[in-house]
């Protein structure tokens, strides 16, 4: 099972778990429907698209409402502490949760009690908590953007908001920042650094750089990092090694974005709709149609 753990931007959304399905531009879990705009719903929608193409079981969500007060996140952390030891997920992706070091550590202890250790992926707020707790190495994959990589590389910063000025969020310095993040043990087994060029790295260095197709507008579109994490999560769930899944996922996300002919005003649902044809192109080696013009 691929478990996705995150929040919904509605204050009164209850704690729900269950199989998540995609219906047009909304995800559905149980009786609840949520529009796919960005955040965890966008991650789930992208993962569902991949699972559908590969005939995999659909992702299983653990979701709760939180608009930033942290109450929903804390309830979900506590639920996970209680219920993860009996969980049998092969892959768990942690996403938008309010960072909380103490509760993060309790969740990690609960994971260690599982009968079989799942592959652990962390993005967004949960990745912040993992780094702050000093437990980054317990994870198989982090998916930061350039600003978040600078935060991982700054051994003193408790949040990207406090990354020290001498550690610049400069995409030209990404290999140096990756090295620094590993030197201070603040990186997962693999890093997928999302940006105008996607870097896939480990403690051994940068393994791959994916930079085409290049659509600069993708950086402005909220949720394109979430879709990448969702695609890679589902590819890992399909049985691919983390490194291979990250490389293929980066290509799929870029090609899906390219097919959407993105502008800075495009929405992430436009990108998600093109994931199946991007997968067909990457996984089946179809001709490079993405070189077509959007004009």
């Amino acid at each position, binding site marked *: 099972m691929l478990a996705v753990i995150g929040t919904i931007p509605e204050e009164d959304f209850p704690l729900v778990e269950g199989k998540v399905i995609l219906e047009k531009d909304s995800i559905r879990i149980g009786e609840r429907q949520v529009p796919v705009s960005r955040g965890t719903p966008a991650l789930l929608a992208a993962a569902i698209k991949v699972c559908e193409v590969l005939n995999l079981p659909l992702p299983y969500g653990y979701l709760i409402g939180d608009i930033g007060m942290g109450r929903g996140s804390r309830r979900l952390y506590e639920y996970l502490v209680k219920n993860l030891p009996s969980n049998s997920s092969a892959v768990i992706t942690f996403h938008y949760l309010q960072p*909380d070091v103490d509760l993060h550590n309790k969740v990690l202890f609960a994971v260690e009690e599982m009968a079989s250790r799942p592959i652990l992926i962390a993005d967004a707020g949960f990745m912040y908590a993992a780094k702050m707790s000093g437990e980054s190495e317990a994870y198989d994959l982090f998916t930061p953007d350039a600003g978040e990589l600078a935060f991982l590389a700054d051994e003193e910063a408790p949040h990207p908001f*406090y990354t020290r000025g001498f550690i610049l969020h400069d995409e030209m310095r990404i290999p140096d920042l990756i090295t620094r993040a590993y030197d201070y043990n603040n990186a997962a087994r693999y890093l997928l650094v999302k940006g105008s060029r996607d870097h896939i790295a480990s403690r051994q260095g940068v393994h791959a750089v994916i930079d085409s197709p290049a659509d600069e507008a993708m950086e402005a579109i909220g949720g394109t990092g979430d879709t990448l994490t969702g695609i890679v999560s589902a590819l890992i769930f399909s049985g691919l090694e983390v490194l291979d899944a990250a490389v293929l996922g980066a290509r799929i996300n870029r090609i899906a974005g390219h097919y959407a002919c993105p502008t800075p005003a495009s929405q992430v649902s436009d990108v998600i709709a093109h994931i199946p044809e991007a997968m067909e192109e990457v996984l089946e080696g179809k001709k490079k149609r993405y070189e077509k013009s959007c004009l």
Partner: protein
Amino acid sequence: MFFKKKESRSPAVKENKKVGIRGILVFENTSEVIRAENLLKSKGWKIRVMGPPPEIRSGCDLVIEFPLIEELSILRALKEADVPPLQVVPVNSPLLLPVDIFHHRDFGRYLMVRAANMKLTVDKETQLIVNVSGGGCPDVPYLAREMVGKTLTDAPAPREIGHTLCGYALQLAYEEAKRKCLQS
């Protein structure tokens, strides 16, 4: 140039050498920090929002640095406004400075402003906020939902409806976008 990157530095952030004569106010959550900051600034106190020292750091935190000499009157004002702090602590070591560098990316019709990990993109012709991206705290999708599709003047300010450091960073990007788009 089509993709032009610029950087500028916020005037609000100066050097951090006030150890011993400043104190910090610690609140239950970031939204209370933002409410207290609005109140104290509106009354003219010279305060700054900063990162907490490691010994009281728990997660997504902000604190307010203030002149210790004014502790009593500040506490009275906060109590009257129903935002009393959890703790008042003297500053014994340098506090973390918030990120103060803005990145601008000009896409022609659109301008993207980044502050820390948050990005706000505006249609320069209509002042419409077309996208919010970046950030990992749970109020980011909520803030995006409330702001995207509204103009810079009609959209709610992140400091009014946000609750976390990501929301605070988005406020900085929002203010910078207003400086860039509404003054021209």
